[in-house]
């Protein structure tokens, strides 16, 4: 478990000190994929770097498996870092070394002998699907392939923690998906704890179990990914979600509408039941779907529907309370 206690990072500037992280406390469970999401400059990268002390916090403590590592330095720190892998937005491979030697570098850092290195590198390259690129130089690889080398390099010493600093932000969407699949697969197979930074909610939705939302140096909300999407509490989180599901209706539609417009939120099992058709059968109302989406986050369905409901006012009210009893929430947007 990674336990960040009241982490503060202030960059000393002679004129005005800048606080990159202000009093952030997080507990990251063993084996989970934990996301840290926020806009650029929110301090997420600085926070991630305090976990392996690439950035020393100016206040607070970093505990790993219960051990306070905040003051580690020299050999102790080096040994600790051998148990954590890290991957980067710009891959940061040694471009004058082959794929094999880049992966071998990590093993060499851990003092692994030459013959063992020869045995251990090929399965790692196999794992990331680059068995045929052993002798290639990073300059000859695509972005996705470079990140795969980065992943193999980071995993070489069988670390318990993998820190991912915007691992897909320099990649196109297809490649992003394949890298995320690979990370998720590795997490499932090895039970490695992953901490992943991103500015894209889509990435969080795809692989994270829990997420911390950061804004202006502060963690404004920490919850499971499903809850963050289904029921965001902080205003900043709501904004982030809105960017990723845009449900605005055209003006023309609103002008012509009769009856009410409802925003229905389903979650969990409710999304798989035919609530709308049940309502239409049970009450004499017309229900028309205007907009909607059902997504599966962490294998749980989360649906949002915008519907137009029309009929005698009293029956409409009854129908609305019936829908309310069957779904997560109903909000009257219009009418």
């Amino acid at each position, binding site marked *: 478990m990674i336990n960040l206690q009241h982490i503060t990072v202030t960059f000393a500037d002679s004129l005005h000190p800048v606080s990159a992280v202000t009093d952030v406390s997080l507990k990251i469970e063993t084996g989970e994929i934990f996301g840290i999401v926020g806009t650029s400059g929110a301090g997420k990268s600085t926070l991630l770097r305090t976990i392996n002390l*690439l950035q020393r916090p100016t206040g607070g403590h970093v505990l790993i498996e219960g051990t306070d590592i905040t003051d580690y330095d020299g050999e102790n720190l080096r040994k600790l870092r051998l148990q954590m892998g890290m991957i980067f937005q710009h891959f940061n491979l*040694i*471009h*004058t070394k082959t794929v094999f030697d880049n992966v071998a570098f990590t093993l060499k850092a*851990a003092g692994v002998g030459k013959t063992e290195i020869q045995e251990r590198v090929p399965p790692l390259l196999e794992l990331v699907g680059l068995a045929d690129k052993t002798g290639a130089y990073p300059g*000859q690889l695509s972005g996705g392939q470079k990140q795969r080398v980065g992943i193999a*390099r980071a995993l070489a010493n069988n670390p318990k923690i993998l820190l991912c600093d915007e691992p897909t932000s320099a990649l196109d969407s297809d490649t992003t998906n394949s890298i995320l699949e690979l990370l998720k697969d590795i997490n499932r197979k090895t039970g490695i704890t992953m901490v992943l930074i991103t500015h894209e909610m889509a990435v969080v939705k795809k692989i994270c179990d829990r997420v911390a939302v950061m804004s202006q140096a502060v963690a404004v909300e920490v919850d499971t990914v499903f809850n963050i999407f289904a029921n965001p509490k902080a205003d900043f989180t709501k904004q982030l979600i809105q960017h990723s599901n845009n449900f605005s209706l055209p003006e023309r539609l609103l002008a012509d509408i009769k009856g009410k417009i409802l925003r229905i939120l389903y979650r969990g099992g409710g999304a798989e039941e035919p609530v709308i058709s049940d309502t239409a059968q049970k009450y004499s109302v017309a229900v028309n779907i205007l907009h909607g989406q059902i997504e599966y986050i962490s294998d749980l369905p989360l649906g949002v529907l915008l519907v137009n409901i029309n009929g005698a006012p009293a029956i409409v009210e009854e129908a609305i309370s019936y829908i309310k009893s069957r779904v997560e929430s109903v909000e009257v947007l219009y009418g």
Partner: protein
Amino acid sequence: MDNAYVLELIADLSKAFGETFYMIAISLTLSLLFGVPLGLLLYVTDKGLFAENRFVNAFSGLAINVTRSTPFVILLVLVLPLTQRLIGTTIGPIAASVPLSIAAIAFYARLVQSSLLEVDKGVIEAAVSMGASPRMIIVDVLLSEGLPGLLRGLTITAVSLIGYSAMAGIVGGGGVGDLAIRFGYYRYQTDVMVITVAVLVILVQAVQTFGDLFAKKFDRL
């Protein structure tokens, strides 16, 4: 031009070539041996790096600047006592290699430092995050990533040394440049001067081409 004259010129030229080669080989080797560690020292003791040390950094920087700001002709004369003590004589190409090496070490150390500064900080950070030792960071990251730049710097140093070695004639060092001055300038033998300059141009061109090829080979872009 009769045959004897041409033969004598060829003999003079090949002797001068030998001397130039000697001086450059010695001082280039020494600049590699001492310039690389000195450049590394400047780099790693700089602010924010793993061996940050303001005193060492400022002192080595100053030593390099003093050497580099002294005009080479003056350095040549200044180090004569040192040359006498080290080599036992102040005359000849080997003696001239002492001031040449000092100048080359200072020159190359700066080029080493600047090519290390070109190494992507992210790659160094990645190595640190993986628990690499300072030794591994120096050998497998800095020197490996900086290699193309180090080779280009070595080419520049070699070309500068060819120029400097011409001045070595002042302390009896000999060499191609010295030949050009003695025959071409003092004796008004313009033909000799033109030939030696042409030879120098070819030499510099060859060194530069060879150096560029080498650097390109190690730059795996």
